[in-house]
């Protein structure tokens, strides 16, 4: 019996070591920014393209990133949010869903609250920039929908995020 217990403890130690290894599956943060591509409404004019679909436009960026346990939009992301606010104010029919996410370093419930605060922060900034409340819907996924799942900063930095998800 004692032998069994010791071998189990060893197994657990081994498992602990194995889980320390960095995972290769984590995608670079930059790639994460461009993964949401909205399609243009079929009825929209052909002469000037919807800037939302221009991959070179700042509007191609659809995610805002945060430091740990912070919900305020960072200076680096403010131009992006302001550009979306301007776009929304000019395109009143457009609606966007703001989805707050967190890394796993909190309880699931605390992170749900933090993700909501992140999404609401972006919502408020969009409203200040001219978007109407009726165009905006903010929700939180907390830590429930991680983009990357390794226990390291490379993953966490991708998961601390608000996505601007335009309705099609």
């Amino acid at each position, binding site marked *: 019996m004692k032998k069994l*217990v010791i071998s*189990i*403890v060893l*197994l*657990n130690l081994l*498992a*602990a070591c*194995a*889980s320390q290894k960095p995972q290769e599956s984590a995608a670079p943060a930059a790639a994460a920014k461009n993964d949401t591509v909205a399609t243009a409404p079929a009825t929209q004019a052909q002469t000037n393209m919807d800037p939302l679909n221009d991959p070179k436009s700042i509007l191609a960026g659809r995610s805002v990133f945060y430091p740990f*346990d912070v919900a305020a939009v960072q200076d680096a992301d403010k131009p992006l949010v302001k550009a979306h606010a301007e776009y929304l104010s000019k395109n009143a029919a457009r609606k966007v869903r703001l989805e707050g996410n967190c890394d*796993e*370093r*909190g*309880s*699931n*419930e*605390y992170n*749900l*609250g*933090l*993700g*909501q*605060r992140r999404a*609401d922060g972006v919502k408020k900034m969009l409203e200040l920039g001219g978007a109407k409340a009726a165009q905006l*819907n*903010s*929700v*939180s*996924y*907390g830590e*429930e*929908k991680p983009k990357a799942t390794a*226990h390291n900063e490379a993953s966490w930095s991708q998961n601390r995020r608000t996505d601007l998800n335009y309705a099609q």
Partner: protein
Amino acid sequence: MLKIMQSILGLLMLAQMSVANAALSIEIIGAGEHQIPVSLVPMGGDEKLGLAINDVVSGDLQRTGLFRLVDTTGKSPHDTAEVNYTDWQLRGAEALAIGTVNAQPNGRIEARFRLLDVLKHVQLAGEAVSANEGQVRAIGHRIADLIYEKLTGDKGVFSTRIAYVNRQAGRFSLIVADSDGYNEQVVLKHNEPIMSPAWSPDGSHLAYVSFETGHAAVFVQSLLTNQRKLVADFPGSNSAPAWSPDGKQLAVVLTRDGSSQIYLMHPDGSNVHRLTFSGSIDTEPNFSPDGQTLLFTSDRGGSPQVYRMPVEGGAAQRLTFGNGNCFSPRHSADGKYFVFARLTGGRFYIAVQDFQTGQMETLTEGGWEKKPSFAPNGKIILFASEARGRGILATVSSDGRVQQHMFTQSGDAREPVWGPKL
């Protein structure tokens, strides 16, 4: 005779192997300070049922770390008259469990069980336990409860149930199972997340958070009829349901008025009123057993910590200090302690704190350990952990000495919560 014993042994080994191959596997780490030596003789009568019951009882008792099972080879008394106490004394047993089990013509299983004190030659417990066909595990848990109660003086919790969420490849299942993880019943399956299951005090309902409507919303579901009701679906997030001890109120967390705040409502969603008024995140409410106060997590002091406030509302008092962030507080059934998850130095630990002294004790080695809840007897704590890259269910004894890891067949086990004593 020897041949019979060998075949029984063989059966025993088969039974043990089947445990490893069943829905989940369990590993035990550590042992109690003083282990009570007890002999569990497989019941006579229907030998197959006897061995099945023996398997459940042995597993239950061993996982506590409080018992040492003394070999029964070569002896199989089923009645008090057949017991030679000296034999068992020589083997080092202090208690001996014997009995018989039979299946009735209607399929009902009936077991007669006795627990004997080997040193004093007296009966400690004797009971007839019965269950419907196929519920042999229930009989085993009941007998394990009786043995545990008589030999430790504490209430057994083997007959209680747990709830948790299993996540596998983006699919979420809300599961209710026996306290040892067996006998799984899927309450809800969805490809959107499910969080925060909470047992009603009578064990008849679960409140939980589901994202199936596109955002976090609170449902209450009957475990008897499976009927469910959407009780909180305000804009933003609706989450963290907690039942009052009388079952008449739900505390929930809503963001409808700004940041996450705690509200009270009836379990049908009516009579919503706000309890906390901070600009911070106030979440994870948990009622004290007397229903007078709430524990909750708040970052009002700059970092997430545990606070306490009266259920009628009013000033909150901070309870956790020092390095790290503290989450998910829950009361022990006697109201003397609370258990919580503490994040410090990049690791989560399960810790308990004494309300009266303010003394905190860390119970685990640390890792991805979250969402602790006490067993109804206060002696075991269930929590979410991780091993070999998978989310698992784990328990630790309230003195931190014995841990067990329960591996579900596949996927990640999350958000466990121990159900009430029924």
